């Protein structure tokens, strides 16, 4: 399913089905770079069934506010439209995958 940038208007539709990881990040956030690399290199190639949505909090402050994101990286995990968990801080691929299993 791959990785794409997501905007507020498309958000609800995009998380409605399947397994989704929403990655809230920003350019100047060091741990976000590591989080992005872990997802891109360790989850995306091996898990085509998971969709990864990137939210740049500088471009989409309304989405960050809607989910009360006060620290990044923050990940929100969805399964079949249900919010499974909102995780704050750098999180390893195994832990992310376990929560989506």
């Amino acid at each position, binding site marked *: 399913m791959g990785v794409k940038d997501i905007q507020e208007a498309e958000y609800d539709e995009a998380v409605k089905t399947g397994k989704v990881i929403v990655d809230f990040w*920003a350019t*100047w*956030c*060091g*741990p*976000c*770079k*590591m989080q*992005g*690399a*872990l997802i891109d*290199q*360790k989850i995306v190639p091996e898990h085509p069934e998971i969709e990864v949505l990137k939210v740049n*909090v*500088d471009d989409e*402050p309304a989405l*960050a506010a809607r989910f*009360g*994101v*006060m*620290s*990044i990286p*923050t990940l929100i995990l969805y399964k079949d439209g249900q919010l499974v968990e909102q995780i*704050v*801080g*750098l999180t*390893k691929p195994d832990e992310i995958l376990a929560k989506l299993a």
Partner: protein
Amino acid sequence: MENIIIIGSGPAGLTAGLYAARAGQKPVVLEGLESGGQLMQTQHVANYPGFPETVSGPSIVAAMRRQAEKAGVRFVMDAVESVDFTGPVKKLMTMMGDTLEAKTVIVASGAGVTKTNLPGEAKYWGRGISACLTCDGAFYAGKKVALVGEGPATAGAKVYLTRCGAEVVGIVAPGEVASFDGDAAHLTGLTLKADGSVLACDGLFLVTARTPQTQFLGTALEKDDKGHIVVNGTKTSVPGVYAAGDCIHPHHKQAVIAAGDGAVAALEALAYLARGA
């Protein structure tokens, strides 16, 4: 196997990379969790030579990085979790799950805020408590924030947060805090030790003294009681492993010193490689 792997991408790591790359060694720089290092948190740098007008930390780092890339440094977004320096080949185990091997290693892993370990800190970490102004400052526009820390860095942090649109309601030394308080989801304030009063805030930033980020080394290198790597110049207790910047200096944590260390460490590593050890 690599000739030189550099751990860290602040001024020390970037300068080490520049010198090693210009010597034709194609070094690898592992960026680490705080890519660019502590300068990324500083908006006004007045004591880095060559910039008569004050300059932002991120712009210094960006320029250093461009220069290093141009010289041939290979940047890898990964962080070291543990090391094995027992054999002639140095091994680095990374967060990405790789084991990297090198003839020489330069540790330039820097320093980071010291956690207070006060009640509530772990619970509200990322839920109102942050150590990263540039990551999280903008979330507090129109909200009340406190600074927990001491020294000149708190003044810079206050300016930065004010510019983000936050209201800085207090600057409190870590020793004056009894606990961090909040509801089930989020921090709501901190309790002061002196009179038990509560300073209400939506968030707080730690701007505490800096601790060397050397835990991943375990006992592979000799360290002092605070975790600084013990060095002779930039030579560590293991031949072929060098260290540079804030991870070695108990007192002088300065970008220009880190950059100078990085150059020395690279030259030492090049000499070690030339000896064919």
